[in-house]
């Protein structure tokens, strides 16, 4: 099997045996050389005409704005089933016969769960435009298991603190310390999920990475969390998180980022997101081919489209929620076609951008806990809510 590793420069290279080198070299080299101008830029083919591609995804990704060009190019129809949380995705996928879905869009930590549950197909890295990705994202750890690729990064964003700019200043939210300030007593909102709530506090406690911590550090994290009970406004689901900002119930929410702030800004709400000095988390949405997909080749083409410059610009500027993208060519196209969005999303290579922030070293992927079980973290969250 062809294996891909990342070398010191962060570029992909193939690790093949001498015996099959000659056979694979051509294909692999072609694959590695494949840029986002690769397959998607080729002429349309009738091979898929009339077929349906079934995609299981977060809301908004089935927007004709996103899938229209793909449908037109291949004469296919993209049918979307939306879910609103990793738990729901796992429930759907585990209770649906294989073959119903072709493509799964999932957060990176859910990709790890899908790999463990044997619900997604291995991918060939040569099929995707990793050469155009920023080196940091060419071999994204959460997408690989045992040197095998299972997902391709589609978009990402950072999570830190979201705050009401009329109530708090940029200076005040430079540190997670603000969460304990008497000014925000009863005004700290929480996104009701243990992972995004505990990991920023783990960063505040100095744990880097925030998910791989000793039991002692976890005990301290519990104390840190529990000390915030008097500050708490409430625990919100996705939809009421927006209204909690809008109706003044929450002034500051940890574990939330630009994706919420940008939407609220669009509604004229005084909300911004920031990564405090202690660091932030990265959420990552990725595309995979479902196990037993009926149209794996079409699924591959869809992932190629979504990760091409054209697809990347569209996915970055989805009306449901915007995000940063990993494809450099996508950045260039966006600067040309949608300069205002390139500025808003900080996707300009000639200005301070999201990758500069990443390179500062205080952004960590949102990952499942390593040294404790999910259950232990979640029970702590339930205890906190019940205090």
């Amino acid at each position, binding site marked *: 099997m062809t294996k891909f590793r990342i070398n010191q420069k962060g570029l992909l290279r193939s690790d093949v045996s001498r015996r099959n080198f000659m056979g694979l070299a051509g294909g692999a080299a072609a694959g590695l050389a494949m840029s986002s101008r690769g397959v998607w830029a080729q002429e349309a083919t009738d091979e898929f005409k009339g077929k349906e591609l079934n995609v299981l995804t977060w809301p908004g990704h089935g927007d004709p704005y996103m899938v229209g060009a793909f449908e037109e190019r291949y004469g296919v129809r993209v049918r979307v089933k939306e879910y609103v*949380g990793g*738990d729901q995705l*796992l*429930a759907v996928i*585990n209770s649906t016969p294989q073959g119903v879905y072709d493509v799964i869009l999932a957060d990176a930590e859910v990709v790890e*769960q899908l790999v*463990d*549950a*044997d619900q997604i197909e291995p991918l060939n890295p040569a099929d995707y435009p990793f050469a155009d990705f920023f080196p940091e994202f060419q071999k994204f750890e959460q997408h690989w298991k045992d040197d095998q690729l299972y997902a391709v990064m589609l978009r990402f964003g950072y999570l830190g603190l979201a705050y009401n700019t009329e109530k708090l200043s940029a200076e005040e939210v430079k540190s997670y310390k603000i969460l304990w300030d008497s000014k925000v007593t*009863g005004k700290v909102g929480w996104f*009701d*999920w*243990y992972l995004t709530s505990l990991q920023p506090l783990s960063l505040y406690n100095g744990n880097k990475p925030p998910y791989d911590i000793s039991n002692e550090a976890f005990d301290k994290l519990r104390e840190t969390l529990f000390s915030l009970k008097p500050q*708490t*406004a*409430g*625990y*919100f*689901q996705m939809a*009421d998180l927006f*209204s909690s900002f809008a*109706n*003044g*119930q929450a002034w500051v929410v940890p574990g939330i980022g630009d994706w919420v702030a940008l939407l609220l800004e669009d509604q004229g709400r005084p909300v911004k997101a920031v990564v405090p000095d202690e660091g932030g988390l990265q959420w990552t949405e990725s595309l995979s081919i479902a196990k037993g997909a009926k149209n794996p080749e079409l699924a591959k083409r869809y992932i190629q489209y979504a990760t091409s410059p054209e697809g990347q610009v569209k996915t970055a500027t989805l009306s449901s929620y915007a995000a940063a993208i990993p494809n450099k060519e996508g950045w260039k196209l966006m600067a040309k076609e949608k300069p205002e969005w390139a500025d808003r999303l900080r996707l300009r290579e000639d200005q301070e951008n999201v990758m500069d922030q990443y390179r500062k070293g205080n952004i960590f992927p949102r990952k499942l806990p390593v040294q404790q*079980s*999910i*259950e232990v*973290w*979640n*029970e702590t*969250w*339930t*205890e906190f*809510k*019940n205090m």
Partner: protein
Amino acid sequence: MRRLNAFFATITVPPILWQVIFFLVPLIFLVVMTFWSVQNYRLKPDFTFTNWQKVLAAGYFYDIYLRTFLYAAAATVITSIVAFPVSLFLGLNAGPRFRIVAIFLLICPFFTSYLVRTYSWQVIISDNGIINTMLGAVGIGQVAMLNTFVGTMIGYATFFLPLVILLQFASIAAIDRDLIQAAHNLRCGRLRTIFAVVVPSAKVGLTVGAAFAFILAFGDFVAPSLLGGGRSPTLSILIIDTVKSASDWPRASVVAMAMIVTMMGVIFAALTFAYRKPGETH
């Protein structure tokens, strides 16, 4: 005789079949699932008591159970008391035309989703909401309602107050007016008539209304979550949390079983009370 048997079979088999397919079979599956395990986020048939042990050993489970029970009991008492005067008026005093309009208006809220109505309440009772803006205008300070116990109770009332009124009303409207007339003739005051004649005569409707209120509140996720802010979790929130973290359906099933047993107990007690004849001790 054969025709009679066919008639009884026609009217009894469908509801029995319905109950078996949509209640008994899922219930049995739920019980079975409490003994299953989860491996790699997938359900795995098993026979383990771990789920029961874990849930019943968690201190917070009892706190949450008690809170859910008390919230549901409070909602039952509050809505039953609020509904009663309305039902009394509609059942005994209102004219036929007014009654039709009132019933229509009571049914109207069910035209829109409970979730939508709950979100509307957020706009009304939030810190920047309509009520607090009005209170601010007359110099009264802000009153916290959203994300509090009050918010949760408002949510419950939104959910089932019209239903409780309709159930109480149906029972009160069916009371034999001669009994009320007789009470008046025997110089019974209004209040005494209500407690000596109306309440005992409408006992079944009043109890069933209260039982419905309890069951709907006990299992509701929306009100404690969206108007209570999830600050004081209930069992339905605990189920969501349990599933959300690691797809732990078996453990969530244990919590669900605790809820079902409680609701069955309450319904049984309510029906026993409702249909007990005066003077019966059990």
